[in-house]
């Protein structure tokens, strides 16, 4: 049964940045675009499970800190070697200064 989980305050994540979020033993990454839209993906890179929150966010792309693999964080799409498997993405919503992500 999908449910909306509070992930962070809107101010916790800077524009063009990413922060980690843990829930029920799983890691997630929460992004804020330059125009203040929030996105969420799996927290680990699909290549070798590196934590993406230590990576670089630039122009709608998260770059993994380990081998510089890139994903479109809005869609989870892998953008070329060495990442070949897309990231799972999660719906988000903002209510009362809190970012929620919908988890299954």
């Amino acid at each position, binding site marked *: 049964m999908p449910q909306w989980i509070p992930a962070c305050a809107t101010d916790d994540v800077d524009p063009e940045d990413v922060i980690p979020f843990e829930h029920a033993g799983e890691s997630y990454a929460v992004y804020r675009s330059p125009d203040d839209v929030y996105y969420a993906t799996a927290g680990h890179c699909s290549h070798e499970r590196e934590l993406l929150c*230590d990576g*670089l966010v630039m122009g709608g792309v998260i*770059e993994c800190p*380990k081998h510089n693999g890139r994903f479109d964080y809005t869609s989870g799409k892998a953008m070329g*070697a060495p990442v070949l498997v897309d990231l799972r993405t999660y719906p988000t919503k903002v209510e009362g200064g809190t970012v929620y992500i919908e988890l299954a």
Partner: protein
Amino acid sequence: MGRERLERYSLVGPDSRAAVDAGLASADWYRSAVPRKRMKELMRRCDGPAVRDTALWLGLMIVLAGVGILLRDSWWCVPFFAAYGVLYGSASDSRWHECGHGTAFRTRWMDEAVYRIASFMVMRDPTASRWSHTRHHTDTLVVGRDPEIQAMRPARLAKLLANFVGLVDVPVAMRLMVLHVGGRLSAEEADYVPESERPKVFRTARIWFAIYAVVIASAVVSGSWLPVVLVGGPALYGRYMLYVYGLTQHSGLGENVVDHRLNTRTVRMNAVNRFLYSNMNYHVEHHMFPMVPYHRLPELHEEIKGDLAPAYPSIWAAYRELVPAVLRQLKDQSYYVRRELPPGARPFHEPSTVNDGRALPLIPA
């Protein structure tokens, strides 16, 4: 001895499996603490420095080749072609490296374009070598896992020396290119290049093969070495600085240690060498934080140097250590240079007989 040594380092040999079983593959590597905001700042991309350095690199090559061609009937052409050769055969290595990581430029296509040009010059297939370098970063100096260990224990001295003029690397690259033209990979490449990426390898090899065929045909038709001196040849006669720099990176240091402070050197170099080598002399910093662009590595060095073993003051200082170490390893393969961390540095985590740098064989003889 030769066969045993190669087997230990083979990616498809028994040590490869033993390294996986010992937890050395895809291990959790040490990283120095850098405040999050500062790290994000150091990772920021811009095009300026790489546009300037690439224009200088390619511009110098054009000028040097032009003067060399004009002077081709006299010995005065030699210094110009020699300098051109170093830019082609050696400086291409660090361009391949930085653009392969995708960190040199902010603009993606620029990274990709320079990566392809540099890959051709250094004679490494851009796709296969991207995967080999990815493995090198995952399992740096882990025996049986890292495909880019230059000085093994014991070192293949004749190969290392011959490679200063590309006498092993270039024929191997040619053999691989022919293999790829025929739609096949070597066994080692098949270990790290995913199926879906292989058609790119074969396509590139066919294009490169055609380029070399044109170069050789034009040399034959014109009855002149000039085309080969300009294209392909520099990978031999201009390669020596690639090895002068490259051997400083890891030779003689600890294997199987999962801490770049112990298996990688940072060496201070002058501005000319840093230009030719694209700041890859800050090698500990690069391995620890591969997303920091080459032109920010000196700043990263300042940020974390208190947590690292001291940097080597010069190339000469690095060689004074690495040459005796590599020679000693010819007899004693458990010998390695143990880097001492400065007081105040966070200690090496979880040292054990498996990962303390000696790299004793993981499988019983």
